[in-house]
């Protein structure tokens, strides 16, 4: 079984490589920056220095959502080559656009807070009548959040409007749900959760959270949210059972520390199960090459030559 870990930096990837190797998997790391894609004559090559990606059974991808314009063609190609990846084609497009993400979640029947989105700030007053205070107001330039604040009254909303630049591409008003925030690391069907306090509309840092055993309902909802966005492994935030955030990247070290777990082991096990499910690739030539490489490092290297 061969699994490739693609990440931006080796320090993020190495714990996963080690966890997989410890379980007998042939795992290696590839820096995403080294990959280039070449589309030609009925085929797309995934070029990476010294690495032949299609020989892998699965790829564990951990990359920033802002890399979506590169990640999407990569996911498309890995999927076409029947290589399992923890996120499906299209999922990074979902991740980088908040209004699109909330539409996707709502259509999948995921419990989300009431959210209103529009392009022109001129509409904000009329739209705000459809939602109750307090609310979370966000403005966007392109697909990036430009400004975000909690608004308690109409007066507060007016000052938000005044503070927003006129050339924004849209704004979002989201019902602010009271309660504690549950940050969940979803790994397949397993959920590891941390409970975080919300004081005066400010969520405490993840580091200050407490390990929490999610209810069946919370577990189900967080898995459903991750899957709706196309992620098998994701960070999902819930408040009072409502999903408020879904992202493909997880702050592994923080979750490990708070939950006294080694989540990398769970990821490795999850990947192994998935590969077994889909069936390992048959690759006698690659296996022979590996044997050759191993022998070349021993006293028998001359014999091999």
């Amino acid at each position: 079984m061969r699994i490739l870990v693609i990440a931006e930096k080796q320090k993020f990837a190495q714990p996963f490589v080690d966890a997989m190797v410890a379980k007998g998997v042939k795992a290696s790391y590839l820096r995403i920056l080294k990959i280039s894609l070449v589309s030609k004559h009925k085929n797309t090559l995934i070029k990476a220095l010294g690495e032949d990606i299609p020989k892998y059974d699965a790829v564990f991808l951990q990359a920033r959502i802002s890399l979506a314009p590169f990640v999407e063609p990569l996911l498309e190609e890995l999927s076409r080559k029947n290589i399992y990846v923890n996120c499906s084609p299209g999922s990074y497009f979902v991740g980088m656009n908040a209004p699109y993400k909330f539409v996707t979640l709502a259509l999948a029947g995921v419990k989300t807070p009431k959210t209103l989105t529009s392009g022109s700030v001129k509409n904000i007053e009329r739209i705000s009548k459809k939602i109750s205070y307090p609310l979370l107001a966000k403005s966007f330039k392109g697909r990036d959040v430009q400004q975000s604040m909690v608004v308690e009254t109409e007066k507060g909303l007016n000052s938000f409007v005044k503070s927003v630049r006129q050339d924004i591409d849209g704004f979002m008003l989201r019902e602010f749900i009271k309660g504690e925030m549950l940050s969940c690391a979803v790994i397949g069907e397993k959920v590891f959760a941390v409970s975080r306090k919300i004081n005066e509309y400010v969520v405490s840092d993840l580091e200050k959270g407490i390990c929490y055993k999610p209810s069946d309902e919370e577990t189900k909802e967080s898995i459903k949210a991750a899957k709706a966005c196309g992620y098998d492994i994701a960070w999902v935030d819930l408040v009072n059972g409502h999903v408020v955030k879904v992202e493909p990247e997880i702050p592994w070290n923080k979750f490990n520390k708070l939950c006294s777990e080694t989540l990398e082991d769970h990821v490795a096990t999850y990947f192994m199960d998935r590969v077994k499910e889909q069936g390992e690739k048959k690759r006698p030539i690659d296996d022979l090459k590996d044997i050759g490489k191993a022998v070349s490092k021993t006293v028998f290297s001359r014999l091999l030559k």
Partner: protein
Amino acid sequence: MKPSLSLAIIGSKAYKQSTVNSLIKESQKYFSSVSFITIDKVQIQTSTQGVALFYKGKNILSYDAIFPRFSSRDFLLGEAVLKAIEASDIYCPVSLKSYQISNHKFLTSQILSNEGVPGIISTLFISPKYSDLAIKETGYPVVMKILSGFAGKGVVLIKDKGQMNSVLDAVHLFEQFISTQKFVRSKHPGTDIRCYIIGDQVIAVKRISKKGDWRSNLSRGGTAKLVDLTPQMLETAKKSAEILDMDICAVDLMDSNGKWVIIEANFMPGPFKKFLGNMVIVEWLKLIHKYAARQKKQKEKEMAKEASKVKSD
């Protein structure tokens, strides 16, 4: 009797007034009710109850057909709006997938090429440091395209590695993703063929660039004339639209060593009013009307079937 149908045209924030005027005027000949809505005025509502789109208090998802006319500049709301339309039973000549793919130059080339549509070798990379590996496949000169560019903007012809390095330095500074395409020496330099695909019909226009400009986008000057397509060109155009899941779109073809290859696909092509008048607009609307009527009839049939089933139960 023609069914009475309603149409919503959802336009870009930066719409072209003359095109919109023609669209509205022509659509009134086919539809009993027509609304033009700029995408920034659409209100998207999501909750546990589902998704709704509103314009001035009216539910947009109650129209019989929706004709999206927005560009890559409208991504923030565009993807959400198309996702909501897709989940409804309204006729729409384009899809979310087609919007995402056609606004990504490399993804378009990748998906079409994988399905056997003749294209030009294209590359995509993040780091200028590792660009050599990709360029090795195309060789110089290359046409470099910024992924988010449109209408010929952000397109540069690069002759050698030195030029490439200086351009990459600038581009990397602005955190842009780079796609390159092998520069094709055409038998007809500065000329390409724009194919409007409208259902089964294809209208082809030869575009000739302004003197001194190697790009043939009409928005950059130049002229155009109607042409007939060879069977190979016709097949390439139709197959591209089918793969990209669009009933209405345009694809640009150019000659590469005697073979017509696809350069790019357009989700929101301009109708070339200056050269073609309202010809393309009329065909668009005829098609939307035909398909929307068919879909409505189907919907009514299903509803009647459902109602009779409930009655018999």
